[in-house]
Each structure stands twice: as C-alpha cells, then as structure tokens.
C-alpha cells in the first residue's frame, strides 16, 4: 500500500509539473479557476490529499487564459469539523508562481439527515504571496438536501480582501448544484457558480460573474480504506463579464 501512496503522490507531482508551464494566469475574475463546490457534510477521521485544477478561457480571445491549481491535505477532526490546508499555484505568462497558502475550515452544524436540509458553515482564510493583497477570507452557509437519488446543494458565500492595498472589496456569491447519484463511480449533474458583485452594491446582471454547466462525479475504491474521489465540470459563462468557459477538476485521494 505504501507503493500505492507513493504512486499517487508521484502522479500529483508530475501532473502539476506538466500543467504549469502551459498555462497562463492573470487575476481578472472574482472566481478562481480552481474553485469548487462545498458540501456541508463532514466525515470524522477522513484524511485526504486534495488536488484541484482549473482553466478559464476569457470572452476576449486576445486575453490570456487563466489557470490555477492547488494541492492540500485535509482531515476530519471530528464529526462536525473538517480542516484542510493547501498551497495554490497560479500562472502569469509562462511563469509558474506559488500564489497563496489557504486554510479551509468546514463546520457541520446539523446531524446528517436529521432535518430536510443539512446545514454547514465555511471559513476559509488565505494568505496571498503578493502581500499587497493582504489576506483573503471566504465564509458562508452551506446547504444540502436530497430526495431518493437526487442531491441538491446551495451555498451562500462572502469573499473579501482585508489589510491590503490591492483587490479590496467584499463580494457576495453563491454556488448551486443538482446531482443524480447514478452509481458510486459515476454521478452526474449541473453546477452553477456566481459572484453577484460587492456585498452592498450588486453589479447589473450582465456585469455579474455566472458560470453554469454539466458536471460528473465519482468515487473509485482502491482498497479497504482508500479511494479516489473526482468531480469535474465544464462551465459556460452566462454574462458579459464571466469567463467564456471554465474547465475545473478536483481529485482527492482518501486514505
């Protein structure tokens, strides 16, 4: 099994190395290429190596593609607290740069399935490498419900930069998802990611960033305590200021 661990880590490292020189990054959007949809559920004792990749193609073909990736380690401390720390990489031209370190904390506020909707709260703190950006905080409520093989998610998020001189502002957004849990290795659905604008001053509809598109999900068990969990989506920008399309992929190695 140690060999399996090593193989996976090697695969992550090679993937990151291969992807980095080919992608270019520029911070034009509130959304990030490697954003993902949060679930309020926490599993005690779960350990995971979490990798995320994403690429945003801008509306204007003369602009650079925006790309990012992250790798982190997450742990379910108890039945209501999951914490994860990860490093994020971004690209500017052909140069790969370490972008930020981020600490995510997720709190499951209700027992799984006790109420019609499971409720959680997210607090994510980021220290950008560019110190002019100060610190970034993302927080908000996470909701999840289900009926038969259908699962529904809706998250309300607030994101802001603090104690810096660049990219200041506090933004309001949401994430939504409908998923059909077809079988363990293959589930499919639709995801939506949106930033509405400043918390107290929303942008007009066409100035908001909204991307919607199909997604696939699955879990492939490797052994008694090991599994690869994946989800991938292809999102279409629905407004003038959204990326034309976004490809995002999350791969977790649970052990």
């Amino acid at each position, binding site marked *: 099994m140690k060999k399996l661990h090593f193989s996976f880590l090697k695969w992550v490292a090679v993937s990151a190395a291969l992807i980095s020189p080919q992608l270019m990054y520029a911070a034009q959007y509130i959304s990030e290429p490697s954003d993902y949809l949060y679930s309020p559920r926490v*599993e005690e004792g779960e350990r995971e190596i979490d990798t995320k990749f994403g690429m945003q193609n801008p509306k204007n073909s003369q602009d650079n593609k925006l790309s990012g990736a992250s790798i982190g380690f997450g742990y379910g401390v108890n039945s209501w607290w999951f914490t994860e720390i990860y490093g994020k990489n971004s690209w500017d031209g052909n140069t790969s740069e370490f972008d930020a370190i981020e600490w995510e904390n997720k709190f499951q506020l*209700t027992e*799984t*399935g*006790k109420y*019609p909707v499971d409720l959680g709260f997210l607090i994510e703190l980021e220290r950008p490498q560019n110190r002019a950006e100060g610190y970034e905080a993302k927080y908000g*409520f996470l909701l999840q419900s289900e009926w038969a093989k259908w699962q529904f998610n809706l998250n309300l998020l607030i994101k802001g930069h603090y104690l810096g001189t660049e990219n200041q502002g506090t933004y309001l957004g949401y994430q939504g998802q409908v998923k059909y*849990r077809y079988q363990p290795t293959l589930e499919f659905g639709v995801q939506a990611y949106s930033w509405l604008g400043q918390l107290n001053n*929303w942008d007009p509809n066409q100035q908001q960033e909204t991307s919607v598109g199909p997604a696939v999900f699955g879990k492939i068990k490797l052994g008694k*305590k090991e599994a690869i969990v994946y989800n991938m989506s292809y999102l279409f920008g629905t407004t003038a200021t959204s990326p034309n399309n976004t490809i995002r992929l999350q791969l977790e190695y649970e052990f």
Partner: protein
Amino acid sequence: MKSVSIYFFFTFIIGMSQHTSAATTDITIKIEKGHFFPSSIAIPSDTKVKLTIENHDDTPEEFDSHDLNREVLIKGNSKASIYIGPLPKGRYAFEGEFSPETAQGEIIVK
C-alpha cells in the same frame, strides 16, 4: 436591498429546513466480529429513521452506503448515529468499508 433580501431568503430556508416533519423511529445495528446484526432491516416508506450503529469490536468501522448517501466512522467500542429517510420503496445496500467481505447489510423500504 437585494443583499437584505437574499439574507432573509437564506434565513427562511435555514429556518424552514430545521423543522422535523415525519416521526422518527429509532433502530440499532450492532457490529460484532466484522458483521452487522441485524443485517436486514425493514422500514416503512414514510418514516424517518435514526440509525444508531454500535461497534462492539476493538477496531474502527465505517458505515458506508452509496444508496443511502451516508458515510460515518464508528470507532472501536463506540457508537454513532445517522438519520435516513423518508425513502421511496426499495432496497438500500450498506457495508462496512473496513471489512466489506463480511460487513454487508440492507435496508428494505416497504
């Protein structure tokens, strides 16, 4: 104004979601020597069930069911609870992720 509206909307959803509707039935499953006892449980379709899983083994076990959309770790000589349902009629398989060869079971919703 829009921000205030969305806060009220979310508060409303959260508030409404926390009302338990169906009556809850308590069922206990034991884990002994890597097996579930009972391994087959029948419940009515309009019922919410609080499933308490008692692990009588020294080693941890994980209750895992894709059919039920539930995963929960039960430490050795400990117990954990999850809620399921109300569910449509059918069979819902579950297993112990750490000993899947022996720890198998199903919920039959009638």
